[in-house]
């Protein structure tokens, strides 16, 4: 009889123990079933504007191999024929041009102002451009089918003076390398990229995705030889901040317009200080002293802040 009572007691004890264990077990299961991504997407909808700007394509892309374009005799002839400007070419790949007659720069339709004055202007993305307020410089990215973001070897920088005229521009050109990689990589989901930026606090609540496009961007830009450009999602937030998410590996970086202008400045400065032999004028009347003076003034201008350009390059 006593054994029966002990058994009842045991049953009660084990029942309580089993209920506790079962509860633990279920709790464990629950922690996995939470899908944070879904929550994030819901969260994004409410907190960020401009989600319609997120493109859906492409889902796959290869790397891009590109190199600096060396200008041929015909190219130089074509450039020389551009109206209203004196042009110099640095190391056969960088075009620096001074506009003689004041060419108005129409900020509402930048494409028009540029197409008239710049060689092969349609190689650049004239719609989605960056603007450096400090030096009053408009930055256009070259397109090799897709835009190449912030690449010192494939960009067009136009400096606009106080009067709202194009004062000078600097142009560099990339071309596709002969051998292109074949392997296609599946790319990161663009919505996921935005969610990532949001989670890290780079995009704050209330921000607007002003533009998001697929292109190519690299962190190491070798000046000579073939550059490797990974497929990249370029995100522009509030028309002012740029984020570049490597679509193959997922890491994110940012670029600042003024840093980019300063990089270009350093490149030009390098020629003026160390390699004047590589500076070639397309206008035979333009004397070397005067060219160096122009370049020095141009470098000084690039240093100016807040768009106040007291020493704008003049004729």
């Amino acid at each position, binding site marked *: 009889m006593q054994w029966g009572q002990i058994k009842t007691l045991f049953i009660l004890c084990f029942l309580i123990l089993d209920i506790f264990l079962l509860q633990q077990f279920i709790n464990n299961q629950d922690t*996995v079933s939470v899908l944070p991504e879904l929550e994030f997407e819901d969260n994004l909808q409410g907190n960020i504007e401009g989600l319609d700007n997120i493109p859906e394509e492409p889902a796959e892309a290869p790397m891009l191999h590109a190199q600096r374009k060396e200008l041929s005799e015909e190219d130089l002839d074509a450039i020389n024929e551009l109206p209203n400007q004196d042009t110099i070419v640095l190391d056969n790949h960088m075009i620096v041009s001074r506009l003689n007659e004041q060419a108005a720069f129409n900020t509402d339709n930048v494409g028009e102002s540029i197409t008239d004055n710049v060689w092969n202007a349609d190689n650049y993305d004239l719609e989605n451009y960056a603007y450096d307020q400090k030096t009053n410089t408009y930055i256009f990215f070259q397109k090799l089918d897709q835009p190449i973001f912030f690449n010192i070897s494939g960009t067009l920088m136009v400096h606009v003076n106080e009067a709202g005229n194009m004062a000078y521009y600097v142009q560099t050109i990339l071309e596709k390398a002969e051998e292109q*990689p074949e392997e296609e990589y599946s790319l990161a989901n663009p919505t996921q990229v935005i969610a990532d930026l949001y989670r890290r606090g780079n995009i704050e609540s209330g921000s607007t995705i002003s533009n998001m496009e697929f292109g190519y961007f690299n962190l190491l830009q*070798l000046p000579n030889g073939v550059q*490797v450009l990974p497929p990249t999602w370029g995100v522009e937030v509030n028309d002012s901040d740029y984020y570049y998410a490597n679509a193959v*590996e997922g890491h994110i970086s940012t670029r600042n317009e003024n840093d980019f202008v300063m990089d270009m400045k350093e490149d030009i400065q390098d020629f003026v200080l160390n390699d004047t032999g590589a500076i070639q004028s397309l206008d035979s009347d333009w004397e070397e002293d005067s060219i160096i003076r122009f370049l020095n003034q141009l470098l000084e201008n690039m240093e100016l802040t807040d768009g106040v350009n007291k020493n704008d390059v003049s004729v």
Partner: protein
Amino acid sequence: MKFELVKTIILTFLVGLSFLLTFAIWNYDRSFDTADNTDQSTEAVLKGAEENKESLLEPYQMVFHRDGTIVGFAEKEKELDTFQYVSQLHLYDFRMLDDNDSSGESESGNYVEIIFPTSMPSSYIREIFSSDEPSEIDTEFKSIKLFLDQNRETSQIIFENSDPYGIDIRANIQNLPQVIKHFDEVFTEGEFITYLPVEVRNDQTVYLPQDPNIKGKQFRYTTINTDSETFQSIFFLNPQDVQSSPNPEGGQTYSDGSRGMLVRRYFMEFTDYSTNEFSQSNQSEGMPLQSIGDQLLTNSIEHINSHNGWLKDEDQIEYRLYDLDVSSEEIEYRMTYNNYPVFSLNSSQDIATMSLEYLNGKLFKYSRPLMILTQSYDRSDKKLMTADELVSFLEESEHYSLDRILNIQLGYRIEQQAAQVFDLIPTWSVQTYNGWQVITKSMVINQGGQTNAMGTN
């Protein structure tokens, strides 16, 4: 009776269920997706070896203070055997050393001073000693003083901070009489040379062998083909996309757009530009420096091990932790030969060290040599300056001043004087805030009047 049977069945069921559930919870594996799969693919390996913490955390000098004299082993490699013995001692009663512990008083007695190349977090003590009772005191140490005094009841061993105002740790040794006996034997059996104590910056004392007697060596070597895809797969996720181009300042640069590898002869520097302020950190901010120090050591060793990156062929060549900067997350391992450090003349192509720099716990820069020293031959004997001559050179020098010198070491400089071989040439080297600088013959000659001091090289 039937009711009892039902009860038995229920009980058995419940007991069984409790076993099952316990087992399920026990084995429950949170199968998190490893988000950190972006780490370098490291299937490819170099021809080197793997290393562990113990062999990298070794001292560069062992000095015996005995009856007022300061001596060290004539054969420097014996320091390591003795250190091996010391590291097996059982330590207990770790405490912070109070000011009134007046260790200075007892320093007149006999003690062994074990000096490391760099200051290390106190947590490394547990990597060195097999102590059950690791020190919880968060400080740094650069040298160990082991007192050979039977009557000393506390602070039998002291872990000394290189900062005079920093915290020191003291501990006791189990079976001290046995240890004292061991060192007595070492002392009667071994050959010893005299050391000259020299005071440098921050009242630190460095010990220089009075009459250095180290032999130069020549090494044959093999190199690593940096163009091979197997080699590149150590550093790049997709080696098939890597392109190379000549570097304007010499050498060759390899890049996949996000990372760069600069190769100059036998030296390479890898930089991962995708590691920036946006890279998700593996560690939380405000992590104590001590744990960053632990993580730096573990991560860097694991990284180099993952591609068998410790290039050493001869037994006498080892790598050793030589510099550790926890605040800037930098760690450096230096090549040593017979426990003498090896220095490189050219700091922009330092082939004597492997250094790694992390950003928020992720590898950012990694530079290393690309050659493996193989067979060695003796080099003809060269007379090196004595310690006294070196000190007077430094005192007279316009370039150096003893109170700005952090350390002085005797070692080798690595140089390629002929194409087929690397030379390890005995050298004095001086550490200032600009890093290590080798004292060369021409420096001594330029100073004038001491041309004989260095002899011919």
